């Protein structure tokens, strides 16, 4: 990570408050809620990795190390906002209200994993890099047209900034002043390609200049810094003042996916100085007297229970339905497609 460029921080690695401008907004409730969500998605992430190792789900891209970014951003959203994630943002999605069973299903190759709870504007994870930025622009533009003050957030990585859609998305948002938040998690790597080979600029935040979009660089491992900068951006968006680009500087602790071996390309020891965002929050809570044993114990058992239940439900889920292969491609499937379906079902039936 590039320490040469200053970035917004509220608490430091030791959990000390270093920027007191928002301290009136920091409460025990907020800290505990942040902790709860970060702990929850961390535990989910660990579980997913272990399920993958056991062959109980497919390839999985862990987000360990990015919890402060994902929770800090998602908690700042409001019920009717829109969330456009990548494959690595299931932490943010869960925090915003995705169903956990379905999240496991997604990584088990199940269509059901893309369907958000009724009323929740959560798009399925974008796999083709950077494409979702434009969707967020469009969806938030629609909100503006409808006269609401709902906004959209697009998540994307450092690597995603190299794609044309990143650029076209920011330009559209800027020209049409859409209420869109471009939330970048600069986690140091795009698979094996380090930040410094992805771009020659030393920050992602400076890319906002190209569009006259307000941008900010924030310590992505500092829940409060992310959360408060998100609030600024959201305020701007809801009040009709257009998009914001946020670069949350964080660190991918583990592999790109469970199929990846970072020792092939990541110098040994690199990133070891990065203090885990949960540890950092714990330190802060301890400093403040927010780290209450009972709260921790309740959180842990609640999360374990939820996850166990979700895994069970995922594994007990009815087998994937072959008809789903055909039935959702069109609202009114063409005759040819129905013929293909029927003849295949017939063949299956006849086995």
């Amino acid at each position, binding site marked *: 990570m590039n320490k040469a460029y200053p970035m917004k921080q509220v608490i430091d690695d030791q959990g000390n408050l270093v920027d007191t401008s928002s301290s009136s907004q920091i409460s025990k409730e907020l800290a505990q809620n942040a902790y709860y969500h970060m702990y929850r998605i961390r535990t989910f992430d660990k579980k997913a990795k272990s399920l993958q190792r056991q062959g109980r789900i497919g390839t999985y891209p862990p987000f360990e190390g990015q919890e402060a970014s994902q929770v800090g951003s998602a908690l700042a959203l409001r019920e009717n906002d*829109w969330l456009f994630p990548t494959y690595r943002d299931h932490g943010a999605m869960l925090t915003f209200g995705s169903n956990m069973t379905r999240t496991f299903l997604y990584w088990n190759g199940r*269509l*059901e994993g*893309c*369907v*958000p709870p009724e009323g929740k*504007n959560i*798009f*399925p994870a974008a*796999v*083709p890099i950077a*494409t979702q*930025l*434009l*969707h*967020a*622009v*469009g*969806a*938030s*533009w*629609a*909100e503006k*047209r*409808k006269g609401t003050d709902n906004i*959209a957030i697009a998540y994307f990585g450092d690597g995603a900034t190299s794609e*044309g*859609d990143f650029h*076209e*998305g920011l*330009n*559209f948002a800027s*020209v049409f002043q859409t209420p869109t938040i471009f939330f970048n998690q600069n986690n140091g790597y795009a698979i094996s390609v380090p930040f410094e080979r992805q771009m020659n600029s030393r920050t992602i935040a400076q890319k906002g200049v190209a569009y006259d979009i307000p941008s900010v660089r924030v310590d992505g491992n500092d829940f409060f810094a992310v959360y408060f900068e998100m609030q600024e951006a959201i305020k701007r968006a809801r009040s009709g003042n257009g998009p914001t680009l946020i670069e949350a500087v964080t660190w991918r602790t583990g592999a790109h996916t469970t199929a990846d071996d970072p020792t092939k390309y990541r110098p040994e020891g690199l990133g070891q100085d990065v203090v885990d965002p949960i540890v950092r929050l714990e330190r802060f809570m301890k400093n403040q007297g927010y780290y209450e044993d009972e709260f921790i114990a309740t959180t842990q058992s609640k999360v374990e229970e939820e996850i166990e239940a979700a895994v069970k439900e995922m594994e007990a889920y009815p087998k994937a339905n072959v008809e*789903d292969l055909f039935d*959702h*491609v*069109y*609202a*009114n499937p*063409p*005759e*040819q*497609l129905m013929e293909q379906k029927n003849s295949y079902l017939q063949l299956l039936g006849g086995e």
Partner: protein
Amino acid sequence: MTTEMDQKTKSNVATKKLTLIQAINEGMDMVLERDENALILGEDVGKNGGVFRATDGLQEKHGPDRVIDTPLSESGIIGTSVGLAVNGMKPIAEIQFMGFIYPAYDQIMTHVSRIRARTMGRFSVPLVIRAPFGAGVRAPEIHSDSAEALFTHMPGIKVVCPATPYDAKGLFIAAFEDPDPVLFMEPMHNYRSFREDVPTEYYTVEIGKGKKRIDGEDVTLITWGAMVPLVEKVANQLKEKGISCEVIDLRTLYPIDQDIIAESVKKTGRAVVIHEAPRTGGLGNDVVSIINDTAFLYLKAPVERVTGFDVPVPFFSLENHYLPTPERMKKAIEKVVHF
């Protein structure tokens, strides 16, 4: 050019003589009028009314919030339309020429066409993508591509291609009403080449249905877009020579009307497919397969294809050699008839 009209227009609905592009303009005007969520996005569609004037007058009438000049960015236009569409809008996106749709191919292939399937219907993209296409108007390079086969091979989208003003308005409105994305291909060669009676009212032409334009006995000619009037002309000329051609305008390229093809070829036993796009990978091959699947035992000769050659659409000094000519069509027709 035959200007046969459907039932309803034979009765006494009011009509106006319109060109194909006027008919499309009228279709857009009507849906903007009736559906407040309809909006038009594209390059130069606003003040300028489109480089062909397809959206002429629409911004003035419906406002710059409904008819929107976008930045020069096809992936931007389509990607943004996805977001607008899943959130309740009904965007009509213009791609200035079909040859400039390629930068948006990723958005169309991975999102426009797949979101319904991926989300089991929770999200959908009721989007119409309009794109003028085809050669023969002395346009500069890349402006004249016929790229339908890149979209008929894309599950989740429909592809429509009117050849006449009547069909243009009716199919446009049907495309707009369709709950799924529709690529609406506009044969620019036909934009102003002739007029026909077009009902002034709101009506649809069903997507997925071809149209028999000429009845015949000896051979079935299957085509679409700018080739339709040309093929009709050839059919009329051959009639005088004693060859009776049935002419089918597919109108919808996905899903293709298999029945109209099967029925006709079962009757004639012979078929020629005519299209502008290059031969290899062209939609003509799908038509051959449909005939193979549905009328094999009736076939008296191999199906012939008269198509663009396997070369990029050339500079305009050679485009008339690239495009199927009446001579090539006649040669193919005579070949199947005298097989």
